[in-house]
């Protein structure tokens, strides 16, 4: 209140007036019904103030009550005149925070007299709450007896909008209000709706977050005030600055509870949660009991723990708790999908994550629904392509300027194998960790296998990673993974001789073309081969998966053989066709070939056998390890055997991998005389040529003349 007021006299003196008016106001609010009764009191009180105050006031100071009574009628009229004027003068009566608003026009000074009289009148007339808002402890917006003034004030001070006066963006105002801890006043006398709107606007403004952080002014002030109220320091105003700083600092440095540990890292907990789900049995209570009986019977889930035990004897495999988790994950898979048989194929390691692979066979008819969708898409694609070719041809015929056609034709697409046959005999599901959902891998196409043989890439662990390589791999990591799984299965799935046998069917041997037999069944009479014999000779082990031909399939398909669809188009394309190419049929070793027939790598045997324990051969297990695909193992003991692959998914090669170089740059166009560069003939050459030509012409003319003469002579005759 030591600020420089433009009206030095009034503010200094008005506060007392204000106070008394407040006091009177309070009294007034108590008994508003007795307005008239109160008046005389005020009438007596105010005049002395008025005398102290502006001289103008004193003029009115002696207003009689009667006049006061008359005033109400004229009151409104006066209001109408100078309602707006009241604002600044009311401000003059207000505490210093509203001082800046005293920068009002000088014209208002004159109006101030009138307005003070009005104020007086209002007091006298018992209108309540004129000064309610003057009360510093009063936090709520004035409900609204002063609504009458709103109109005028909004006109004056709002930005023309009907929705309530806006906050004056005055730094001094902010400073003052924050110092005294007042909430910002939106306006002195807004109407209820604009008032609420104004409040909301104010709050919204305060809730804006600062650029640097997430803290908004509102929150900060709330924190600050809470802190002050909690701590109740002695002289809050003087320590306000430091309190402000402390509050801000604390926002960013939350106090750690020294007695309790912070919550631990998330990722391992999430993993544990997921894996916990594996351990809970599905169904509960009574249902659980019934399931118990059913489960004791056949389930497609293999006995992974037993397999893991045997492999552990051989020195291969994952730790026992991981094996158990895999077992539970496969159980989950079996519950989710209609599975007929299921086997844990192995684990493929990746740079960021690994893959657990399950080899699965669906029940009859179950998987066809999904397959059809995929086929439709591919067929649609093929149809599109043929249309494209036809259009292309027509365009070319129409075009006058014939662009030389590229001679290169893409090699014919080799159709992929049907489900449940050849390389697509089994379906594969992968997941990264036991507990995560299983993803189904798509069937493999011959093109993918052919390309997978040429590249060598580590797996990252995410199925949708693109495989960037040369030659370009058609597909993403899921396809590459599937192709490698197919190759590994074809190369390393072995079983003891005699475990599988061919099903007895007539006419099998009459099949042509090395198609061979592609199905086998378990031999019920299998007796088991002694372990020592298994270890000694590779002839006791056989492959039970079909070998993949260089073409990329297990059964050979002549790529040039036109199918029915293609034959129709073939007639149109005859002129473009090249001569029929002879393609040799590719033959691979038939099913159930013993391992001793496998090709050697650099004079080294492709397989290594071991006894799991040399100290106790009678109980040990025969282990076969592939040298071609490091990580592929098989064990056999008695009547049991199993294959597994744990590794990176690459073939072994003695030399390091050299990616294929890109093809040589093709020739743009055949060079012929018309585009060959030659130097232009010189002037002498041209002249010589010209002379020679003239001579030749002259010679022919003479001959012709000679002939003509002869003819002429003849005709003459």
């Amino acid at each position: 209140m030591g600020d420089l007021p433009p009206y030095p006299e009034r503010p200094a003196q008005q506060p007392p007036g204000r106070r008394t008016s407040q006091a009177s106001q309070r009294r007034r609010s108590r008994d508003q019904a007795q307005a008239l009764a109160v008046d005389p009191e005020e009438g007596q009180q105010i005049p002395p103030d008025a005398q102290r105050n502006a001289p103008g006031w004193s003029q009115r100071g002696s207003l009689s009550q009667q006049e006061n009574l008359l005033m109400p009628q004229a009151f409104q009229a006066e209001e109408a005149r100078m309602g707006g004027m009241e604002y600044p003068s009311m401000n003059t009566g207000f505490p210093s925070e509203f001082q800046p608003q005293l920068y009002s026009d000088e014209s208002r000074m004159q109006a101030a007299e009138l307005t003070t009289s009005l104020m007086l009148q209002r007091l006298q007339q018992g209108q309540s709450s004129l000064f309610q808002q003057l009360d510093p402890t009063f936090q709520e917006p004035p409900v609204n007896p002063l609504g009458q003034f709103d109109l005028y004030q909004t006109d004056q001070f709002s930005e023309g909008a009907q929705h309530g006066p806006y906050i004056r963006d005055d730094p001094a105002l902010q400073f003052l209000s924050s110092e005294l801890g007042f909430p910002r006043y939106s306006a002195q006398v807004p109407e209820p709706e604009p008032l609420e709107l104004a409040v909301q606007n104010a709050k919204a403004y305060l809730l804006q977050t600062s650029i640097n952080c997430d803290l908004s002014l509102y929150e900060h002030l709330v924190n600050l005030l809470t802190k002050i109220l909690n701590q109740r320091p002695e002289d809050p105003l003087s320590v306000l600055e430091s309190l402000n700083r402390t509050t801000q600092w604390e926002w960013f440095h939350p106090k750690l509870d020294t007695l309790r540990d912070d919550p631990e890292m998330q990722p391992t907990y999430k993993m544990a949660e997921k894996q916990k789900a594996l351990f809970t049995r599905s169904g509960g209570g009574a249902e659980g009991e019934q399931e118990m009986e059913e489960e004791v019977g056949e389930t497609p889930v293999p006995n992974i723990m037993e397999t893991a035990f045997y492999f552990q004897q051989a020195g291969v495999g994952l730790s026992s708790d991981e094996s158990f988790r895999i077992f539970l994950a496969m159980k989950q898979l079996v519950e989710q999908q209609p599975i007929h048989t299921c086997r844990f194929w192995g684990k493929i390691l990746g740079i960021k994550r690994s893959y657990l692979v399950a080899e699965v066979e669906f029940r009859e008819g179950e998987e066809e629904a999904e397959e059809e969708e995929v086929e439709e898409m591919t067929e649609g694609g093929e149809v599109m392509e043929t249309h494209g070719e036809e259009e292309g041809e027509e365009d070319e015929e129409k075009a006058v300027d014939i662009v030389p056609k590229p001679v290169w034709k893409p090699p014919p697409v080799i159709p992929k194998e049907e489900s449940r046959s050849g390389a697509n005999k089994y379906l594969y599901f992968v997941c990264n960790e036991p507990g995560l959902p299983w993803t189904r891998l798509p069937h493999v196409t011959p093109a993918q296998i052919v390309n997978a043989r040429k590249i060598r890439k580590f797996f990252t662990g995410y199925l949708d990673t693109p495989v960037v390589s040369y030659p370009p791999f058609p597909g993403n990591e899921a396809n590459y993974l599937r192709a490698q799984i197919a190759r590994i299965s074809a190369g390393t799935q072995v079983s003891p001789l005699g475990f599988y046998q061919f099903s007895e069917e007539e006419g099998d041997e009459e099949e042509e073309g090395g198609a061979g037999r592609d199905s086998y069944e378990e031999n019920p009479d299998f007796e088991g081969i002694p372990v020592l014999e298994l270890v000694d000779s590779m002839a006791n082990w056989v492959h039970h998966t079909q070998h993949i031909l260089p073409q990329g399939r297990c059964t050979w398909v002549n790529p040039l053989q036109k199918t029915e669809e293609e034959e129709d188009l073939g007639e149109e394309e005859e002129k473009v066709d090249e001569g029929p190419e002879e393609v040799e049929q590719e033959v691979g070793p038939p099913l159930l070939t013993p391992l001793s027939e496998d090709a050697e790598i650099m004079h080294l045997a492709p397989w290594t056998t071991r006894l799991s324990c040399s100290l106790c051969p009678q109980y040990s297990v025969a282990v076969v390890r592939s040298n071609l695909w490091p990580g592929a193992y098989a064990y056999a003991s008695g009547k049991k055997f199993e294959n597994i692959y744990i590794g990176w998914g690459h073939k072994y090669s003695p030399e390091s991998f050299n990616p294929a170089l890109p093809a040589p740059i093709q020739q743009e166009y055949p060079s012929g005389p018309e585009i060959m560069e030659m130097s232009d003939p010189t002037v002498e050459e041209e002249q010589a040529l010209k002379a020679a030509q003239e001579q030749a012409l002259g010679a022919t003319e003479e001959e012709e003349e000679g002939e003509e003469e002869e003819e002429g002579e003849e005709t003459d005759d």
Partner: protein
Amino acid sequence: MDADSLLLSLELASGSGQGLSPDRRASLLTSLMLVKRDYRYDRVLFWGRILGLVADYYIAQGLSEDQLAPRKTLYSLNCTEWSLLPPATEEMVAQSSVVKGRFMGDPSYEYEHTELQKVNEGEKVFEEEVVVQIKEETRLVSVIDQIDKAVAIIPRGALFKTPFGPTHVNRTFEGLSLSEAKKLSSYFHFREPVELKNKTLLEKADLDPSLDFMDSLEHDIPKGSEAVVQGDFMWLLSRCGFGWPCSWDSCSVSMRVLEYPDGEGQCPGGAAQPALAGPHLLPCSPHQDLWLHLRGHW
């Protein structure tokens, strides 16, 4: 792996699919104890296994007080009898670099390699084919040496250096926190530093001479050759770099609060594809004790 904590480290490193059968484990535990007594080593570590066609080699290393001093390497074919290998020399490494293919499994086996050598006979100079015989033992030694130099790692803070010179195991090392375990800069090559002296003064100013006296993994070329893979509750550092894909170093996760584990297990497992051979290496951790704290080991 230290002989004391062999079993635990094997469990941790089993993610790569390689393991030891129970009989081997039992015999290792016993025989390593005896080796330690006989050769008077401070620590004996099981380095790993190299697979051969006929037999596999099991390798162990013995350390003296100074951790960075050259280690003595021993090999065995059956995990019970151990024989000392000669230390590796540059000559050996160069000589055996020409041999490709798998190990045979017989230490006395000799590889034959034909070379063209210039022979001076008087004034004539002509090339003659000379058959060079390389013993498998030599090859073994050089391969082990190469693997160690390329792939052996240790977490930062596990060893410290005193002003007197020798490097000691840091008994107050509690393992890496989760955020640190993910970063490559918190691991070092476990060998004499090669690149340290090439660092600028600015970089050196940030280093702590008692802890940062080895090459960090951060600046290895090719970039991205190491990856930190999260296994089950632990981090496996898989190095697919130079040539030893799937050598796993498992530093099990240490939560900030829990103690120890850090175990830097070097577990080369799988077919390494270096420019030379394809030894299959077993999970093992030569260099760091794995202190067993059940809380730290899930």
